């Protein structure tokens, strides 16, 4: 198990990320950065559940969608302020996780996979069929952007970038504090041997449920960022395929590695851009990459980075 970085490293990385909107040549490139940061927050949460606790969750995109629709519907249909939508987004996604997580995570084996799969399928039907609320398959239109404040319109790409930057940074900071805490050690003990951890008096089910709900809350907040940046939401963004791609990003970045979500989210965000009109090849590539990474390099890109750093250090010595 790789060690955790000093919090200063995290600060340094995020200060560096702050340069992106100033370096980017146009709004499109800035917004790619926003997409990347939202993906970082999503992958961080899923990495806690899958990478650190060893639980296969197949509805992470559903929690993302619950957050997006909660705030989006309240703002577009009921005139809520986007800022007031954040607690609603986090609450609805967490509620979903509580309903699914409590019965499923008290059991061993494949119940979480089954329950999350079922939840994903049920919510996809709801997003599509509750047309008067969600706009159905055509999507939710008329979602306002983030409020204008300080005399500056914050719904400019720079403002959106800052919101997403805060979101991703906060998710990584929470993950770091959590992993360094007693609960973090418990999580690693569960992955190593749930039976042994239980024998030592750890309430394993409770830890797993808490992490699952925390990850869903993070995804809900990500949905809030997404819906007010794009000012639109549509069911296919939050479907099963997206959940699977997020899981793939966890594996490619590095299963249970703290820095893994950064390269994982980068691959997830950039692949469709690089493919351009060959975007049909996306599934083929992600599927192949997932198998190859698991076979040849289970530590993912984060472990590759760590190995290169070690080699560099030895070469210098």
């Amino acid at each position, binding site marked *: 198990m790789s060690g955790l970085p000093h919090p200063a490293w995290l600060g340094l990385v995020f200060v560096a990320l702050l340069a992106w909107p100033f370096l980017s040549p146009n709004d499109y490139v800035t917004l790619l950065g926003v997409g990347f940061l939202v993906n970082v927050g999503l992958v961080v949460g899923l990495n806690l559940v899958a990478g650190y606790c*060893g639980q*296969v969750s197949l509805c992470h995109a559903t929690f993302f969608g619950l957050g997006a629709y909660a705030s989006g519907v309240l703002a577009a249909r009921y005139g809520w302020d986007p800022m007031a939508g954040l607690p609603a987004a986090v609450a609805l996604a967490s509620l979903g996780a509580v309903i699914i997580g409590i*019965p*499923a995570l*008290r*059991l*061993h*084996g*494949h*119940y979480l*996979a*089954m*329950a999350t*799969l*079922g*939840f994903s*399928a*049920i919510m996809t*039907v*709801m997003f599509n*069929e509750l047309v008067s609320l969600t706009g159905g398959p055509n999507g939710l239109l008329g979602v306002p952007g983030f409020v204008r404040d300080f005399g500056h319109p914050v719904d400019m790409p720079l403002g959106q970038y800052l919101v997403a930057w805060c979101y991703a940074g906060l998710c990584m900071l929470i993950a770091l504090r959590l992993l360094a805490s007693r609960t973090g050690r418990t999580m690693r003990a569960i992955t190593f041997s*749930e*039976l042994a951890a*239980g024998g030592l008096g750890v309430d*394993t089910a409770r830890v797993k449920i808490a992490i699952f709900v925390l990850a869903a809350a993070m995804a809900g907040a990500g949905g809030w960022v997404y819906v007010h940046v794009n000012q639109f939401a549509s069911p296919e963004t939050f479907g*099963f*395929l997206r959940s*699977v791609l997020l*899981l*793939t990003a966890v*594996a490619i970045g590095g299963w249970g590695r703290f820095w893994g979500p950064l390269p994982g989210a980068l691959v997830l965000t950039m692949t469709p851009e690089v493919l351009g009109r060959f975007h*049909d*090849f*996306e*599934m*083929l*590539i*992600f*599927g*192949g*990459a*997932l*198998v190859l990474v*698991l*076979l040849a390099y*289970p530590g993912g890109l984060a472990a590759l980075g760590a190995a290169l750093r070690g080699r560099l250090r030895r070469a210098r010595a």
Partner: protein
Amino acid sequence: MPPMDAAALLQVLFGGLGTGAIYGLVGLGFSLIYRATGAVNFAQGEWVMLAGMATAAGHMAGFATGLAGAASLLLVVAVGVASYLLAVQRLRDASPLLITMVSIGIAIFTKGAIMVTLGKNPTGYPGPLGDAVLRIAGAAIPAQSLIVLAACAGFIFALQVFFARSRTGLALRAAAADRDAAALVGVPVQRMVMLSFGLAAAAGAVAGLVITPLTLIDYNQGTMLGFKGFSAAMLGGMGHPLGAVAGGLLLGTLEGLAGYAISSRFKEAVAFLLLLAVLFLRPSGLFGKRKAERV
């Protein structure tokens, strides 16, 4: 809610049983691989789709449908065995979690490969009885759905005979029951796991071959068929092949009834809601033995 007339109800029930038999066959595949590896094989549904798509492609290219179907069956079994030999067997630490993740990779790879090579449009071929419809007590039942039921029953019967009567079947059961003990008495465990992948792929392929004339098929349908098969297996109790079949029949029938009585728009949601309710109340499935496994 439409009035419950007997003929319509019979039709719904029959349709539900046909779909349920398909779910059962797919679930059987899940159960076989679960018994051998402890993992959930998410590629199972894509194998169903692959069989249908490959046969349709053969049919369009002018080959006899029977020949195309047989070739597709072999192809899918080869893909199943190759998935084991090229991916699963080569994992360094083959934990069920890792095998499950690899199977997700294989699933989206297969789906992507079929989309890129055979296109996105739904396709199909006529069944051996064409569009013939049977009239039973006022209900109209497609003859192909009888073929679906017969094929599923035939495959399950053959599998049971294989497990009960052949030495290989016995060895496979032994390897599933206790890997180490089976290896000690000379059962080639790795070969048995490979065989499980082949049999699971065959179950998926048979399901795909018989369902396509009824519903058509496209690259995207394997995923949902896989979900339903997994659900059937969980409903029946994971690792009990016959339980998976019973679970599939039940799920298909409930789904048909839910679509008829409540709403076809929310049909999928109702089916999964029922499933989750059953699983949370009785985690070992309807037919599985209760195990004291909570720690």
